[in-house]
């Protein structure tokens, strides 16, 4: 194991996307003069990478900044600070023109299948739009390619001339996915791709995303609040709390031995569909709600709700350290940690 301290962002397989110290603050202005009185610290210093071919799950409660993070790495938003590198190229501050060629490689799927599709356009126009925007004519023509895409996501090619309102929620989400895949992207960022869907439809879309990844070799960043969905789809999982990354590790170790108290509480809070277990299992109930990202708590942002918090947590922000190979956590008093590493984290 290397010295726990500064990590090189990429260990292991090649990193497709690297995020280093990413910050996004939304200014809050007041009065006629639009004087800035504060900022929503939506994302406040994220460092991680996305490896080629993997699915990185990003999970957290409302206000944790996960959606803002998604919009930053797809460059729908410009970061206030830090760097986003895609295949070795710094894209943090590229303009619209600079991003255009990269839009082919980075695509986004949105949560709401009802509002993310223009109701006045046919499915053919919607799914074919990326070709038009990029000025590309696919082999065999746009129409043929769009029909191929529709088939790929489990719709019928005859749906080409229909309008979004003729489709159910699950089918609309498939249209959104077809549009995202049109230009054969390398990276797909999906923000709550299934949370607006019914349970039985949710499973169809999750399976579809799974199949498409195998078939097309996609890399996913899937953002969701549902820990069960995240567990099912992800290879590695990042847990966010109030704009910070509190834990980042592979799926198995996150669920088997979470190190951050927040992760532990989050996992224990999810209702388990097994009535036999409701009396047996240990449950950590956190106090109160998530604090406002406008004035987040000092030190470790979780200390106001943490049962393990001590003075050091209020004063000092814990760095994100690899306490075990591939298991990064930002906590002064980690759970399930090897003794030496835990001591190191508490001391440093």
């Amino acid at each position, binding site marked *: 194991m290397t010295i726990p301290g500064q990590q090189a962002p990429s260990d292991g397989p090649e990193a497709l996307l690297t995020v280093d110290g990413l910050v996004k603050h939304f200014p809050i202005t007041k009065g006629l003069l639009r004087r800035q009185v504060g900022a929503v610290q939506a994302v406040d210093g994220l460092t991680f990478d996305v490896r080629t071919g993997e699915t990185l799950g990003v999970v957290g409660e*409302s206000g944790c900044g996960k959606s803002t993070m998604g919009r930053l790495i797809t460059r729908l938003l410009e970061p206030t600070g830090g760097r986003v590198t895609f295949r070795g190229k710094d894209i943090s501050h590229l303009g619209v023109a600079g991003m255009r060629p990269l839009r082919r490689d980075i695509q986004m799927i949105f949560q709401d299948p009802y509002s993310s599709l223009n109701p006045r356009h046919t499915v053919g126009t919607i799914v074919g739009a990326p070709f038009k925007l990029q000025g590309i004519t696919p082999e065999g023509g746009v129409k043929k390619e769009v029909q191929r895409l529709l088939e790929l996501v489990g719709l019928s090619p005859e749906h080409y001339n229909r309008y979004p309102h003729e489709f159910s929620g699950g089918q609309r989400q498939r249209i959104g996915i077809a549009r995202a895949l049109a230009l054969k992207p390398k990276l797909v960022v999906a923000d709550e791709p299934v949370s607006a869907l019914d349970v039985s439809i949710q499973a169809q879309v999750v399976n579809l995303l799974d199949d498409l990844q195998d078939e097309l070799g996609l890399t996913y960043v899937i953002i969701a609040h549902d*820990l069960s969905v995240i567990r099912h789809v992800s290879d590695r999982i990042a847990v966010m709390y109030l704009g910070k990354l509190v834990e980042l590790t592979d799926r198995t170790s996150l669920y088997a031995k979470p190190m951050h108290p927040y992760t532990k509480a989050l996992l224990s809070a999810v*209702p388990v569909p097994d009535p036999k277990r409701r009396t047996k299992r240990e449950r950590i*109930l956190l106090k109160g709600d998530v604090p406002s990202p406008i004035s987040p708590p000092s030190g470790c942002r979780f200390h106001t709700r943490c049962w393990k918090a001590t003075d050091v947590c209020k004063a000092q922000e814990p760095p994100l350290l690899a306490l075990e190979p591939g298991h990064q956590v930002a906590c002064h008093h980690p759970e399930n940690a090897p003794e030496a590493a835990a001591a190191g984290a508490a001391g440093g």
Partner: protein
Amino acid sequence: MTTAAAPSPASGPASGPGEPPTAFLDVRDLRIHFPTDDGLVKSVDGLSFQLEKGRTLGIVGESGSGKSVTSLGIMGLHTVGQYGRGKARISGEIWLDGKELMSADPDEVRRLRGREMAMIFQDPLSAMHPYFTIGHQIVEAYRVHHSDAGKKTARKRAVELLDRVGIPQPDRRVDDYPHQFSGGMRQRAMIAMALVNNPELLIADEPTTALDVTVQAQILDLIRDLQKEFGSAVIVITHDLGVVAELADDILVMYGGRCVERGPAEQLFSAPRHPYTWGLLGSMPRIDREQTERLIPVKGSPPSLINIPSGCAFNPRCPYADVPAGGITRTERPELRLVTGAAGGPGGGQHWSACHMAEEERTRIWTEEIAPKL
């Protein structure tokens, strides 16, 4: 035909139509239809169940299964919904504590609302009036049923309940407006408002869907504690199987406006006997175990309530629709039948399911084909 031999659960095990029931809440053959320009929306189409005090019934279903309309129908609020006022057609019987509500004077039902039966809604922000203080809204709920109570008494009661549901500094926060509360606090205040008159029936419609996971856990705990304390009958309506597993003693699965399966919670999760319930369980990613297999989704989409498939409403999506001979699944609607295999087990004689397949066949499919994959 096996349906004739089985006791008909539509009228409940102990009593026929019109007879007073033995259960605290007895819903019999409830139908709620809404005429619309596109056709008749059959939101609830023949639903029956009983509920005793001190028990929690979880009603599970996807959007458009009729679960929310059911709860509004019991409250007498079905005319308020999305299809417009006063146009609903409702039939059947709803017995609450020995009184039949459907034939009762509307004003009498109104006086039961908020006092004997209360409701918690999904989104506490939109469910509270933005222009009145939390305290005012709770006081109002109290005084409408306690006309003799003074403002001071009512306010004291409001503070007391806010304290009980875990609002810090309740004597100060009672004068706050809903927008000054966080999401979790608002749902607590909503619960306080529902409990202010010690209702005997509490209906919670998706009580935690709008909340974050950690706050959801707090609210589920609160509901469970309060039920122990107040001993009321509780109906929890949700799409989340996790939530019912946490709260419910009994579960009723709705599909296309009807009950497809109903039984004790443990049985429903460990030995479900309806293909739709299997589909729900197979669709759900699990937090509590490592899954390498793919999910097993239900094909297709939930049916339109205007055009419910003939025969078994689930037949177009059912992988076993062709198992029963003669295409009966497409022509004849299956009635709820007692699951006899479970009769000897815990909660025996309480597990019902509406499927044309023979019970042995379903038991075999579940144990051999479905359960191992979950």
